[in-house]
């Protein structure tokens, strides 16, 4: 089966990758580019742990066929740090204890990044909870995650 050359901009770095046509964007990020921060959970678009930004919008990387991502811009959790330190949202997660096992955390961070980027006004708790409808966490019960996002959005 022939490989496809696709061009991606991942965390501001232009990249050319040869992909199998049946690979997903999740496979490309983890296996070809070694970006293990994007976690594989259900592989069917239900758990949100593989959430990345595709042209600025939060999507499940497992639902994007790799050849279909050609020419697009992707941000993963590795792209959030600024000058080697955690950004404000990441620090808020640390401060509020918004993670236990950490499996869902990168997906939560990417969903929250997209959500907060769209807000012009103060953020309400219900909005945060609706924004997180596609991210499962089986440890925390969500309370501290919601608090961390609210704090980052309203500071």
């Amino acid at each position, binding site marked *: *089966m022939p490989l*496809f050359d696709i061009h991606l901009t991942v965390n501001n770095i232009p990249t050319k990758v040869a992909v*199998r*046509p*049946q690979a*997903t964007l999740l496979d490309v990020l983890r296996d070809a580019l070694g970006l293990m921060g994007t976690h594989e959970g259900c*592989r*069917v*678009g*239900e758990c*949100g742990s593989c*959430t990345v930004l*595709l042209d600025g*919008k*939060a*999507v*499940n990387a*497992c*639902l*994007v*066929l790799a*050849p*279909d991502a050609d020419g697009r811009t992707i941000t993963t959790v590795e792209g959030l740090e600024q000058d080697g330190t955690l950004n404000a949202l990441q620090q808020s997660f640390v401060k509020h204890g918004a993670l236990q096992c950490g499996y869902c955390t990168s997906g939560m961070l990417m*969903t929250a990044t997209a*959500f907060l980027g769209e807000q012009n006004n103060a953020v309400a708790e219900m909005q945060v909870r*609706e*924004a997180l*409808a*596609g*991210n499962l966490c089986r440890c925390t019960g969500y309370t501290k995650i919601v608090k961390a996002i609210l704090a980052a959005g309203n500071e």
Partner: protein
Amino acid sequence: MIDPLQYFAPTTLQQASSLLVQWGPRARMLSGGTALLPALERAQWSATAIVNLKTIPGLRELEFDPSDGLHVGALVTLAELQRSPIVRAHYPVLQETIAYVATPQVRNLATLGGNLCVATPTADLAIILLALDARVTVHRVGGKDTLSLDRFYPTWGGTQLAQGEILTGISIPPPRGSARYQRFMVRQAVDVPLVNFAIALEQQEGQISHARIVLGGSGPRPLRMIRAERALLGQLAGRETFARAIDLVIADAYPPDDLRASRAYRHELLRVLLRRTFSTFTTTDRANASF
């Protein structure tokens, strides 16, 4: 893991159509991918060729004309529809309905055309769009055809699309009266509804001049409750008229009896939710629509 496959990125409908004919039933169309990729991953569907429709230009229009209604290209995503000021202004019920579909991440990828072609019997958007008398445009060899969404869905399930045919757009006529979508689920998000339905009613001088009742999950496709619709026409909008219509819906509805809920429970749920939803048509207080 998805089986190896051929990938095609056609740039015209004709090319896409030819590829679909050439590869036959083992070819699958890709639009949002949110149904296709999980189905391949779970080996529920098989494919040896993927034909990407997103490389075809001109299927992303979103236009409203007061006399003509709304035209939506098949590749418009659910998130684009949900955020559209046009949709918010003229079809608020459509915006409310989209909020129920899947997750924010999935709505950023999923397209309206793809959503309608998956043709799930409980599909939120198929149900509300049937209630709004939507029509679909289909690309065929030798031209295009426009048919009602009601005809697009055969009684036995699935769609009317033959191999090589592609849904290119959805048209919704100008709003008549007002419409509601109602859905009950155990979880607050990402769940299969136990009961869902849409109602559209237009009243002229207190009399019902137009009625649509569409019920999900009660057969291989969302179903129009024709007897109940007819019972409403020409009647005064009010508790007695609605009660008669509800009895007819209950008589005609045959919801599943499965691990999620019994048929008897779903019937009871349906009766209560229909009563609540109908009651919102006789008052201007939309807040009564929720529960």
